[in-house]
């Protein structure tokens, strides 16, 4: 077989990346990305009999457990499993990507020290692994929603792509940043675990969105002149999860519920906060990428 005789010309990277050029390099390295995701999945489930079934088992167990204990824990949220999982799956993608992304460069030290490739691929592969789990778990949720007769809510479902893209961009930004940071400061990984725990409870996944809105808008409703709800929305995962809730849970005030479950706002309002979060996250990706890139030139030496 004749090998293709294209002449590759390569110039050493300049310390300041140009976005277009970097994107082209990443596109050229997509096979490496695919291989790394495959590798991570394989390593993750290496020597386990059930393999990827474990990934699906997690939401299945959640569904089973919360169908039973929803009456107690559900805090009056009808169809609690749907509410919980639509937010939890987004959270899982976010936290799993960041958790393994923070270790991505360290864990692949032998690659970083020996082979040349766009280093961004390592944290991106962590996000890729998170995406595979997200897809499997979403399939479980979708199946449940259809089989249980809960059904999909059409105008609201249109919000899903926006919520998903925002989640992805936000996750990529933070994963890039943490994985670069963790090379120099090894305790960032530990810090991240604690931060994620607090972050989880600061996001309306287990409890109803409206509970927060009710608290925030009761009383004076402002803090230093800023609406307290706006402060809550500063947490980007609140906006993302609100998007997923609206798209999949669908109804603000379900039948049989005395008060709203989701934020008592219009669909356009949710789309609005998602768009703002998306724009901020895009700016975040640019900065995180720049930081990652400027650090990545020395990764091989710092490991």
């Amino acid at each position: 077989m004749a090998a293709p005789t294209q002449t590759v010309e390569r110039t050493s990277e300049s310390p300041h990346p140009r976005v277009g050029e970097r994107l082209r390099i990443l596109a050229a390295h997509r096979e490496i990305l695919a291989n790394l995701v495959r590798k991570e999945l394989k390593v993750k489930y290496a020597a386990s009999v059930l393999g990827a079934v474990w990934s699906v088992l997690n939401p299945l167990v959640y569904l089973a457990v919360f169908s039973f204990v929803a009456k107690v824990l559900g805090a009056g949220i009808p169809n609690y499993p749907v509410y919980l999982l639509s937010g939890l799956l987004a959270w899982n993608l976010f936290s799993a990507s960041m958790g393994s992304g923070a270790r991505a460069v360290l864990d692949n030290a032998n690659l970083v020290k020996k082979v040349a490739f766009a280093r961004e691929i390592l944290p991106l592969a962590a996000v890729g692994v998170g995406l595979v789990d997200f897809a499997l778990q979403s399939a479980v949720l979708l199946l449940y929603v259809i089989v249980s007769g809960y059904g999909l809510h059409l105008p609201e479902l249109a919000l899903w792509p926006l919520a998903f893209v925002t989640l992805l961009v936000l996750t990529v930004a933070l994963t890039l940043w943490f994985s670069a940071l963790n090379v120099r400061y090894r305790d960032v990984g530990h810090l991240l675990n604690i931060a994620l725990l607090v972050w989880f409870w600061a996001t309306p996944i287990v409890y109803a969105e409206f509970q927060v809105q009710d608290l925030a808008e009761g009383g004076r409703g402002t803090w230093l002149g800023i609406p307290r709800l706006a402060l809550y929305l500063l947490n980007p995962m609140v906006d993302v999860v609100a998007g997923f809730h609206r798209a999949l849970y669908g109804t603000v005030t379900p039948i049989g519920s005395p008060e709203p479950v989701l934020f008592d706002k219009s669909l356009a309002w949710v789309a609005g906060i998602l768009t703002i979060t998306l724009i901020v996250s895009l700016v975040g990706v640019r900065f995180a990428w720049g930081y990652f890139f400027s650090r990545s030139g020395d990764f091989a030496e710092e490991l």
Partner: protein
Amino acid sequence: MNAPAIEVADVSKRFRIYRDKPTSLKQRVLSSRSRAEDFWALRGVALDVGEGSTFGLIGHNGSGKTTLLKCVAGILRPTSGTIRQRGRLAALLELGAGFHPELTGRENVYLNASFLGLSRRQTDAAFDDIVAFAELEDFIDNEVKFYSSGMLVRLGFAVAVHVKPDVLLIDEVLAVGDEAFQAKCLDRVRAFQREGRTIVLVTHALDTVIEICDRAAMLHHGELHAIGMPADVVREMRYVLLGVTDPNFVPEEGTREAEIAEVQIVRPNGSSEGAILRGDPLTIVIDVRQNEPLDDLDVDFAVLDGATNHAVLDARTSRADLDLGRFEKKRVRFRIEAFPYEPGKYWVTVGLSNRTTGHLYHVQTQRYLFEVFDAPRVQERVEVPVAVEVEDL
């Protein structure tokens, strides 16, 4: 001539060294910034590697040769300067070039080949050859963590050579593995040479460099110290490394109407060997022979710092307004009253030229060496002249 396969232009690489290596945030916050020190692993290195040539890179440990190789490979990014490289590149750095222990040999081959720019289908085509070359047919579906180091090197080398790189970078890997496999690797390197591929070899095996390289360069403290024919550079390497003077190694040029017959660096004790102390006088004695009658002959010398290669001192007869005239043989003495510079090794370059046209008759570049020690303080007694005077009161 073809465009060079690798162009290294004024490349420097700085590392930050943390004295206590504070890798946790707490230490980082508590420790002052001044703990970080700059270390220049490469400083202003410039060299070209011609397409299809085999280039040897030598230097003692810590001279920066591996850093340079990693910069060329794209594993490290130069702090300043640029490296241009043409063609597909494969780098073999130390053991098992980036294998993952949890994956099987087969999976690692595919992963590794994709890093080297091979698609899945191209890897399929080369797979059997790779396994056969590595002699790992029975183990290819075992996880790599069960491999011996020799097996890892074999697999790494097999993948690298089978992706048919245009440029192959090899760092010391030829020294591992059993003798039979080493011979096989050398065979493959020679085949690569015949096929016109470019090879850069980093090694401590100086004889290998002479044997298989077309050109070589020596790095010393991160700077390019010598570049040229492998035999010359290796001689230079032995010179610097062992302090052994090799009279056969004479980087010389000139048209030889006049010749440097002999050079002696005379120490204060009259000997032309041994080290001097800082502040000692030093005489550079140059015997000059004119092969044909010449007017305006100028004799000069320069002293270069062995660590930096910068000239620290020079003198010439014309500057002292000395006209040597026509002669058969003359002796020129340059007397340095007190050599003032830091302890270390110093090179002497000697030259004969025409004082009006600048034409070079004979130049011996950095052929002579002397070493300076620090003047002793308390350890040794030194002769200090003490004058005695007696006065009537």
